[in-house]
């Protein structure tokens, strides 16, 4: 799943570094992800994993790292 997340970040995150090289705990905002780009990342994640992020999960901390995104997706898509 982390690879798919990295791919989405590469396509939509508009990071200043190559998402493939990012560590699981690297700060995505420090890597250049803006609020606007994070919305596109959220949309791509919802489309790819066929999930819907509830409003309570639509905050900065959830999309801060690849690890936190993975945890959020896993919470919504068990199994």
């Amino acid at each position, binding site marked *: 799943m982390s690879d798919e997340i990295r791919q989405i970040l590469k396509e939509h995150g508009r990071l200043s570094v190559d998402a493939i090289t990012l560590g699981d705990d690297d700060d995505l905002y420090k*890597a*250049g992800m803006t609020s606007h780009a994070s919305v596109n990342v959220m949309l791509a994640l919802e489309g790819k994993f066929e999930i819907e992020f509830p409003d309570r999960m639509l905050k900065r901390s959830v999309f801060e790292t690849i690890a936190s995104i993975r945890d959020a997706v896993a919470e919504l898509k068990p199994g």
Partner: protein
Amino acid sequence: MNLIDGTHVEAVRRIASEVAGPAADSVDREGRFPDEAISALKKGHFMSAFAPKSSGGLGCGMVGLAAMCEALGEHCASAAMVFAMHQIQVACIVRHGMSQAFFRAYVAELIERQNVVASVTSEVGIGGEMRTSLCAVETRGDRFGLVKDASTISYGAQADDLLVTARRAPDAPSSDQVLVLVRKADYSLEKKGEWDSLGMRGTCSPPFKMTSEGHSDQVLSQPFADIASHTMVPFSHILWASCWLGIATAAVTRARAFVRVQARAKPGTTPPTALRLAEVVSTLQSMRANVDHVTTECEALMTSQEGTDALSSIAFALKMNNLKVSSSQLVVQIVQQALLICGILGYKNDSKFAVGRHLRDAHSAALMVGNDRIYATNASMLLVLKDD
């Protein structure tokens, strides 16, 4: 609002009507800083209104601050806006800097000396996009240098200290920002233009090139992104909307007085303006209801443990943005209607029903952070927000 805040609000109301109001026409005509009002507010220790009581501040809540801005806005919108903008900076420091020794000491100094703090967010080349910076903090050992070409600094020439946004470091991406307090002795401002504007003429907001340095302790350690969503944006939108509510209220008050004069002249007849007055009073109530509701809700969120989490949510950001765009449109609509009601006496500047300054000041609202920019942000957020 608690009783003590109420007392402070009353005191600011008196300053508004007795000091800010009488000077307002001159402030507007000359485009000068509202010295009289700001001095009176400093004397009353209102520059540290938001600082906690435990440190010596007044410990006013958001509701109290909003009421102060509205009261000032009724009498001199420029003074109100200067006061509001300063409070926004103080709130950022008080809510995000207290874990740092430098900022604890600074708040103590601000309380004692009633320092005025200005905001340096906008930058030449990036327009009003607050979450983007070109300039960067350049660290040299435990000191920093920071040069910023600011497209506008409200009351920059009159402020004591400045709170500046910048990229964290020269190699940081444009949205990776920090907030830095820059001290008067450590910065110089080169004025790059004039402030000869339609309204808000007393906010003295020309462009400046700022050259500064300081100690790295002066950089707030929390990322600006969090400071922005938790404090700068909500305080900005609420306190600005409160200033605008004051402008709208003052214009309607004049329209009401005008209609009563017309009615007394011909008892038994209802002047045609009375219907338009009924309309605008209703609109004012809607504007007030929105400001009051969001202010009260925000204060509740900010003063509760669970609420703090909600401050980073997209739903909260949307609500804050909606308050701004809605209030900025209603203030113009309301003042315009007051002008129609008062007719030529509203149109003339030397009349007790004059609302020209009110209308000109009101037009700034949609522009300070352009509404289209805010609507675009909201549109983006609505692509993922579910309202569940």
